């Protein structure tokens, strides 16, 4: 799960996210990024709020990308940490399935983190191949 942003000069930034929660109305998402690595991402979001989030399964490269606009930005609450730990365990399991040690993946720093709430504008199929980039209708 990767978060893409860009600065005022349209220079892009990419950062691995460490958890996601779908909002109750299903048109907003909260994405968690590690605070220690997020300086550029946060500066970009303060400048323009544009976001691309790409979800890709390690095991089969099935990928979707959504585009949206930042709604709010805050430090994650303590009760949101469990969600990130579940994400990390699942990610470590995926890496393990393709031959990597869980121990390595479990060292990914997930805390403290920043919660980015965004409104989803568009959803695209992004699995490598001729269909990549196709808009998924009704997805957002």
């Amino acid at each position: 799960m990767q978060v893409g942003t860009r600065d005022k000069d349209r220079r892009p930034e990419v950062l691995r996210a460490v958890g996601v929660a779908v909002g109750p109305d299903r048109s907003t998402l909260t994405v968690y990024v590690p605070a220690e690595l997020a300086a550029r991402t946060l500066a970009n979001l303060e400048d323009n709020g544009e976001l691309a989030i790409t979800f890709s399964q390690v095991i089969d490269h099935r990928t979707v990308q959504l585009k949206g606009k930042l709604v709010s930005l805050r430090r994650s609450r303590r009760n949101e940490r469990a969600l990130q730990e579940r994400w990390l365990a699942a990610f470590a399991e995926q890496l393990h399935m393709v031959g990597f040690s869980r121990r390595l993946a479990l060292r990914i720093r997930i805390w403290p983190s920043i919660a980015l709430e965004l409104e989803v504008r568009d959803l695209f199929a992004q699995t490598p191949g001729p269909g990549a980039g196709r808009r998924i209708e009704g997805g957002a």
Partner: protein
Amino acid sequence: MTLFESLPAACFQGVIPAFIATCSVDGIPNVTVLSQVFRLDARHVALSCQFFNKTKQNVLENPHATVQFYDPVDFTAYRLELRYERAETQGPLFDAMALRIQVIASHTGLKGVFRLLSADVYEVLACEKREGFLIPAAADEAPEAVDPRVPQSELRCLHLVSQRTARAPTLDALLTALLEALEESIGFRHSMVLLPDETGSRLFAVASRGYGDEGVGAEISVGDGLIGTVARERRSLRLSNMNSELRYGRAVRASVQATSGKRELRAEIPLPGLSDAQSQIAIPLLACDRLMGVLAVESKSALGFDEWDEAFLDIVGNQVAACIENAILRERSDEATPATATDAGDAPAASVAAPGPRRRFRFFPSDDCVFVGDEYLIRNLPGRILWKLLRAAVDGGRTDFTNRELRLDASLGLPGLRDNLESRLVLLRRRLEQKCPELRLVSTGRGHFRLDIACGVELEEVV
């Protein structure tokens, strides 16, 4: 040396997927998965472009890109700031990248669908380690062992290979010596040599090590898979993370099927050799402009081989190709030499109506296939040769033969110039060792051999 130059080569083998972020001219960021980042020189990387996607569209409008990628050994994350420079659609870089994609396309049944459009070259503006991406390892935690091989000096390896292959008296002995030396000196435990058949359109494994009984006789079409592609293109190739590359290919395959369901895709081609190979190198064995065969090695480790291994095998391959050609020419030129007692060694005397169990051999002329009992033994030219030898032994009581008479026998259909009789006899000898040890082809001098039969023989031609 900059950080970028000093990054371990493993970072550029695509083991853990990398991601690239770009931005459209109207300010919308885009993030997508990358199959591999190639380090070109101290200031450039190349990314493969298989489809004209949003990333490509963006960098043509706005050349800035950022890539996050990982060292697969310790999972350290790195960040590259890039500026798109150019797309190459021909030349050595394009050819090298296209070849890798052809192999994956071939294995996943995507020939012609999944191909390289361009090798996109980016300038590296900045490279940094993502400090804080990982929680530091505990002090008592040992790093994971990735490569169990113990490297020895390059010279020693070459010396051993060179010595053994140069001294091998026959093609058979040469191939055995080569694979033994590769394991002993450098730890390549799974290796095979494939030689072209008489049509030149297929390759068959004539010697293998580390595959049990199943290696010898395996076949692959020229142009198919890693080995077939290397044979067709006559260029060596190393794949370092087969699983990951094949997963990428399969993702494309699923995507092709989803977007154009009616399109008929070819079936996936099973990889010859290990079912769980993670790394492979295949080297064309070229003597002048002739393809003598392909040398392939495999490893179960994703980072089993590096550039050095490929370069080393290339050197070995050059030498071995010449040795194979010499061995074949030597065996051929000595065909007129009569058999001597010394050559025959201590091989037991031949007998046709030998005591012991009877074995039934069946020949299927439609595909020149020979079965022993109910088990497949061999087919094509070596099948025809075996049948001729068995007929001569059973009908005429004859067990001594020469390569020359096989060569002159029109019914066997050996191609004229540059036939491959020697390599086919090596394959026949090895298949007999594995599947029917009661029959042996024993050399009785250069170009002469005897069929030893230690069982009763029953022949049936299935029309």
